[in-house]
């Protein structure tokens, strides 16, 4: 099964790394000032920061080197000629790894929005504090000896501060409300806008009439509290996106582009378009979709189809981004997604699935739908009630507006975003990055968990199984260090302490590596290359889902090593805990039945299906949903993307293919599966807290409306009620940080019990 394609036998040494074309990463900032941004790996402490900034800053020509510790990014500006390679080399010499960042990524709009919200927050904060200073003086004066002239003066000062501040700081809400109205919807920003505007208008009129009460403080304080919620929400989203971007830069999304003149240089993916030719060396991932022009090889398509066995490919064949090239060099001509290809099908299925999903109704929508008519009806009733009671227009309108002020959705506006921010922060510490805040609510309702097998339940890369003679293993592993073959990488990982490759190892593409040690030739590679066919057949009979590497030292008996994609170390514990918590667990895989059944047996999952196409997976998920299930899909392959989009909510490991990452609601990092449990638990907890917050807000409104409608509201009561309810909701939201009991237990169990649970029963 391994390296079986002998047709690829062309001798070729390990190709040296190509010079990289860094020019697309460099931004020219004027005459001779240039700038590059690097995502840096390995930063841990304050000393790292000084080492990097000092080391890079001392390079000749460097004008500025500044490390952003929060984003783990280094910005370097220099004059004159300085190669980016030199910066990277210097960084490497300092003990860090840098990855250039593509400056074309469009993050400007979001950064601008964050800054705009923070500016609005600062203005609202400044205004509300100063207004409150005057307001408290008036309240104190009203019960003692303030003169009407002084009170009017104080009210006018408040108006001078409040009107421009509200006009500026409230813009995010006004704009959103208008956008909503244009689209024919009344969103939560509409009652906010209405409340703020009416309060200000009423307060100005009251001030003109030298009245006792004005509500400038309430209007601006409301904006201040709501903006806190918005800023938190925006910051969370920005942070998630920045880290996700770093991850993709760390995976260094480049391809070896063959230029017109025959020169090969590594170029970022954004600089490669249809028609370009790309060289894919053995051991590299194919970074583009295209058609093979030259060469033949075997591909590990597990990230694309879920199939773990290597597939042969030759000139004219189609390759997809994400496939791992095992043995020979390939020259690929890049194509745009063409009709009838796998990706085309995947994209069409995803589009359909996403349309079907948008119908989901979330808590916030439900709350708005109930809240807006209720409050507005209460205000209208107050108006007509007082008119019928003969109170006159002035008193009736005053009380109706008071209802709108006191019910302004301060707590309601914080109820959901505050929980989302805290819960997303807690999940981040568990290794889960959420793409959307509303995924939490969908996670809370899940009752069925569907796993993909390859790369999700199993680790993305293959590893050695079984036990071997340590001396033989060590020799083979050292030889494997010289090979770029993915199966050899699994063997090399088992090398232990001796990490120095053997001198004079020669790699024969498609066959294996050979070296001479103490006059004895040792060989590692396909069973045929090592004369180990019979041993390989025997091993494959016992473990049909594994791949075999042959090894032979001189004339000694050849040995075989079994390599396969092992289960994640806590896969069994996680699946067991999920089942114990009452979730229905299924495996839907694109891999062969033999491989899937073995994984299902090890995890004790009764419901599994193998050899499914993307269309089949989507059909299974839709059937589960039609039967009333709420489905969480966990998958990583290109073939999983439609299923991820079709499920109620979805998670991907961070090693997943691009399309899948984009389709999933969240990514989890690391080699463990426990983050899936953490996500489900946090979702449940978050939804419970959101509901508590919403009920509290509702109760608060029910208590406040009669007070306002009855004409008993004073600015002091409004201020206390508003800030009090916001504080209660915020403090309650903080509880989302705690209580991940099941995830913690699995983590602990995984650590103690991982050996007996997952030790493979091979050889």
């Amino acid at each position, binding site marked *: 099964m391994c390296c079986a394609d002998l047709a690829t036998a062309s001798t070729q040494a390990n190709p040296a790394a190509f010079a990289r074309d860094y020019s697309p990463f460099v931004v020219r900032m004027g005459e001779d000032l240039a700038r590059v941004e690097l995502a840096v790996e390995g930063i841990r402490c304050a000393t790292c*920061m000084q080492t990097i900034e000092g080391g890079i800053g001392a390079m000749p020509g460097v004008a500025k080197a500044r490390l952003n*510790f*929060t984003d783990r990014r280094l910005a370097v500006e220099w004059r004159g000629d300085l190669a980016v390679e030199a910066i990277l080399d210097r960084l490497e010499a300092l003990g860090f790894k840098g990855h250039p960042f593509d400056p074309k990524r469009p993050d400007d709009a979001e950064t601008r929005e964050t800054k705009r919200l*923070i500016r609005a927050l*600062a203005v609202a904060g400044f205004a509300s504090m*100063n207004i409150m*200073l005057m307001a408290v003086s008036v309240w104190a004066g009203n019960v003692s000896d303030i*003169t009407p002239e*002084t009170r009017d003066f104080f009210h006018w000062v408040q108006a001078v501060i409040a009107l421009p501040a509200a006009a500026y700081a409230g813009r995010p809400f006004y704009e959103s409300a208008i956008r909503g109205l244009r689209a024919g919807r009344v969103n939560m920003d509409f009652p906010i806008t209405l409340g703020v505007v009416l309060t200000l208008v009423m307060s100005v009129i009251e001030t003109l009439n030298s009245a006792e009460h004005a509500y400038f403080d309430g209007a601006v304080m409301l904006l201040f509290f709501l903006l806190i919620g918005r800023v938190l929400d925006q910051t969370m989203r920005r942070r998630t996106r920045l880290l996700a971007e770093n991850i993709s830069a760390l995976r260094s999304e480049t391809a070896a582009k063959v230029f017109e003149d025959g020169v090969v240089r590594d170029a970022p993916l954004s600089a490669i378009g249809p028609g370009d030719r790309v060289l894919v060396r053995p051991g590299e991932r194919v970074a583009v979709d295209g058609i093979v022009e030259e060469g033949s090889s075997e591909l590990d398509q597990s990230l694309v189809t879920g199939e773990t066995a290597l597939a042969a490919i030759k000139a004219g064949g189609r390759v997809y981004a994400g496939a791992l090239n095992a043995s020979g060099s390939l020259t690929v001509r890049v194509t745009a997604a063409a009709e009838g290809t796998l990706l085309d099908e995947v994209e069409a299925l995803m589009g359909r699935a996403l349309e079907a999903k948008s119908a989901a109704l979330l808590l916030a929508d439900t709350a708005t739908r109930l809240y807006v008519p209720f409050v507005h009806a209460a205000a209208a009733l107050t108006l007509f009630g007082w008119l019928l009671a003969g109170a006159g227009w002035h008193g009736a309108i005053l009380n109706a507006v008071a209802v709108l002020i006191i019910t302004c959705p301060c707590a309601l506006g914080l109820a959901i975003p505050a929980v989302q921010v805290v819960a997303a922060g807690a999940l981040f510490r568990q290794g889960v990055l959420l793409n959307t805040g509303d995924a939490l609510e969908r996670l809370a309702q899940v009752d069925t968990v569907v796993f993909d097998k390859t790369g999700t339940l199993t680790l993305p890369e293959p590893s050695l199984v079984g036990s071997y003679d340590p001396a033989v293993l060590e020799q083979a592993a050292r030889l494997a260090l010289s090979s770029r073959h993915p199966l050899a990488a699994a063997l090399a990982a088992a090398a232990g302490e001796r990490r120095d490759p053997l001198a004079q190892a020669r790699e024969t593409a498609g066959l294996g590596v050979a070296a001479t040690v103490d006059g004895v030739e040792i060989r590692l590679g396909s069973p045929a290359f090592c004369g180990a066919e019979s041993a390989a057949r025997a091993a494959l009979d016992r473990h049909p889902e594994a791949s075999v590497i042959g090894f032979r030292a001189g004339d000694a008996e050849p040995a075989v090593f079994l390599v396969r994609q092992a289960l994640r170390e806590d896969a069994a514990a996680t699946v067991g805990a999920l089942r114990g918590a009452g979730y229905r667990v299924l495996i839907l895989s694109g891999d062969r039945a033999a491989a899937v059944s073995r994984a299902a047996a090890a995890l004790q999952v009764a419901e599994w299906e193998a050899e499914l196409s993307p269309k089949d997976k989507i059909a299974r998920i839709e059937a589960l949903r039609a039967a009333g299930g709420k489905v969480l899909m966990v998958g990583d392959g290109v073939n999983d993307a439609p299923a991820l989009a079709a499920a109620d909510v979805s998670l991907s490991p961070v090693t997943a293919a691009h399309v899948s990452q984009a389709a999933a609601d969240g990514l989890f990092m690391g080699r463990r599966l426990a983050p899936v449990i953490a996500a489900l638990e946090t979702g449940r907890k978050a939804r419970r807290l959101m509901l508590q917050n919403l009920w509290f807000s509702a109760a608060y409104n029910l208590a406040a409306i009669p007070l306002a409608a009855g004409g008993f509201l004073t600015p002091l009561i409004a201020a206390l009620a508003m800030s009090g309810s916001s504080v209660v909701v915020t403090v309650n939201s903080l509880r989302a940080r705690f209580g991940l009991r099941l995830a913690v237990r699995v983590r602990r169990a995984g650590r103690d019990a991982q050996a007996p649970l997952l030790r493979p029963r091979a050889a």
Partner: protein
Amino acid sequence: MDVLVFMIPIALCLGTAGLCAFLWALRSGQYDDIDGAEYRVLADD
């Protein structure tokens, strides 16, 4: 009463100065790296 006519504008001016200082700090990127700032304090250049 008379003194308020002076005191309140003065207080507001001071507050506005604070607000402007914050907005300037925001614009000049001093809030871009909150985690790094706590370490930079300790660094001797």
